[in-house]
């Protein structure tokens, strides 16, 4: 008897009792569907993080305000803007590994162009910001030195804002838009960098301070909310970070033993750590889903053992008519395999549907992974072989004479 004949016989037997066959493979279906779904959600989350890491730019350090002490009371991180434009200047001039640096202040406001308006992040910064983030222009130019020094009424739009404010044919460059009643000329439109990054409008730092925050502002005219700095090479990240910390401690006159009033972060490294965490959680979930596969295998074994008992007479007849022990074994093994493969296929289809539903309903990014599908099918086959073997072996060992006597 050949493998093909084994599968034919198995399919015939399983078709005779479709409900039972389906219930038997349900465990495998659920197991495989969960594995595929978990993989799809996990790798979707990783893709999204990778995109974010890319959008920050390579070798970027971010300096944000830390805790401050006022009269011995520790205030919350960031409750006071502790960094200044002269800090930015000092970092640029005194630390050789730093290629570019920029300070920013940011807030949200309504941007208006003719009939259209859009609520977005307004980021006041210098051209250095785009250098740090390797952010190219799609059209136009960056800020000029005069605009940066003299609070020029100019704006560079992220691609989302440009899309929201301008009709597809319109050229935004040279157009006038208004932010908080201040008319500004669009001088540049940025390349796309990712959905979370592109919803922004940049103005010169001086413009933001003088025209938007006004003199009523309680912040120091020299302050910035955060600084980003680009390190020349990957290997210099740790060194540059230490140097920035030293420099800022000196400049801020922080006595030895007292906490820094700033924090230097490596956002890419933090995200990579997060990525590792996602991977760990996904693996854990896959392990849990595998238990379902195991339970599915056991249920197949159970039903197969019952089926062998029920079909003892059939086994006797087949043996009397010339079936060898290995033919009987193959027949039942094929049945287990068909159950697992079919269950696996239904599970893969279910998993794809489920992850697409999750993607649509929860708005998560999911990514169907060929490797995960292959892996779960291999798992199903292995389950069929492992759990089908015992019942098949049991069937093949039956004495034909005894088997023929059973009713």
């Amino acid at each position: 008897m050949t493998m093909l004949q084994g599968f034919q016989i198995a399919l015939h037997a399983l078709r005779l009792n479709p409900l039972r066959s389906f219930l038997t493979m349900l465990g495998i279906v659920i197991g495989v569907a969960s594995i595929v779904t978990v993989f799809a959600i996990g790798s979707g989350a990783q893709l999204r993080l990778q995109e974010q890491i890319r959008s920050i730019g390579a070798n970027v350090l971010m300096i944000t305000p830390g805790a401050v002490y006022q009269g011995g009371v520790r205030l919350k991180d960031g409750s006071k803007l502790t960094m200044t434009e002269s800090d930015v200047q000092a970092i640029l001039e005194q630390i050789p590994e730093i290629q570019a640096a920029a300070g920013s202040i940011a807030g949200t406001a309504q941007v208006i162009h003719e009939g259209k308006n859009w609520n977005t992040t307004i980021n006041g910064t210098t051209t250095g910001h785009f250098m740090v983030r390797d952010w190219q222009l799609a059209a136009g130019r960056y800020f000029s030195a005069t605009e940066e020094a003299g609070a020029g009424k100019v704006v560079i739009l992220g691609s989302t804002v440009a899309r929201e404010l301008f009709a597809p044919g319109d050229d935004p460059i040279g157009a006038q838009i208004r932010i908080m009643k201040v008319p500004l000329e669009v001088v540049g439109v940025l390349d796309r960098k990712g959905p979370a990054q592109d919803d922004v409008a940049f103005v010169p730092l001086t413009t933001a301070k003088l025209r938007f925050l006004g003199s009523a502002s309680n912040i120091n005219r020299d302050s910035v909310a955060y600084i980003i700095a680009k390190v020349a090479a990957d290997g210099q990240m740790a060194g540059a970070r230490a140097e920035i910390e030293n420099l800022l401690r000196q400049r801020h006159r922080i006595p030895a033993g007292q906490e820094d009033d700033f924090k230097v972060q490596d956002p890419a490294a933090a995200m990579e750590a997060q990525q590792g965490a996602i991977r760990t959680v996904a693996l854990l979930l896959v392990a849990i889903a595998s238990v379902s596969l195991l339970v599915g295998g056991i249920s197949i074994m159970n039903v197969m053992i019952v089926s062998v008992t029920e079909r003892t007479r059939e086994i006797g007849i087949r043996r009397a008519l010339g079936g060898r022990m290995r033919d009987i074994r193959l027949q039942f093994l094929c049945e287990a395999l068909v159950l697992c493969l079919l269950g696996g296929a239904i599970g893969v289809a279910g998993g794809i549907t489920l992850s697409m539903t999750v993607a649509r309903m929860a708005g998560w990014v999911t990514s169907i992974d060929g490797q995960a599908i292959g892996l779960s099918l291999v798992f199903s086959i292995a389950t069929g072989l492992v759990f089908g073997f015992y019942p098949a072996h049991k069937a093949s060992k039956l004495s034909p004479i005894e088997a023929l006597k059973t009713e």
Partner: protein
Amino acid sequence: MTAAAPLISLQSVSRTYRTEGVAVAAVRNVSFDIAQGEIVAVMGPSGSGKSTLMNMIGLLDLPSEGAVYLQGANVADLTEDRRSSLRARSIGFVFQSYNLLARHDAIENVALPLVYCGIARKERLARAEASLRAVGMLHRAHHFPRQLSGGEQQRVAIARALIASPLIVLADEPTGALDSRTGAEILSLFAALNRTGQTVVMITHDPGIATQCRRTIHLHDGELVSDERVAELLPSRSTVS
């Protein structure tokens, strides 16, 4: 061995069942030969060892002592796989309870032994058709066993026994579950087969059936008590062992 070896030869065959320390001698020291083309009736009271003997001739069971030879080869010397193969190609079984697979139709049942001869499906079905035609059951090819009468099921079972052109057909009370008229029809089917040269061994309780066979073996308590041949032109000759 030699070409002159009988089709089947039993030499001092005994079969003892041992269950929970109790030994039951189902067949004791039985010897006889079956030649090509014979039709043999095996008779004896219930429990006399007929089925046990038949199982050994059909390579389903091995003797505890003595030996069964098929065409000169001691079947105990063959591997289990080889004996299975021989069952597929050289032995045709017919059972009292038909033993058709309930979930397969007549033609699939008839074709079943050919699965184990490694024959492709198309040829299997063609040969099964021929075999069904030979027993007059072609018109029921796609009926399932439960849709057939006892006599019809037995005809399908005979078609299945014949499909691989076996050396010998072994029938264990083939008419036992049938009424006497249907039984007679089945019997005449065996007789007709035998006239074409088919070797047949048939277990029966019915002396009327036995008289239609040219040779009758009687068993009692596992022992062979008589082996009678009826020659068509010669007077009956009996041998008592």
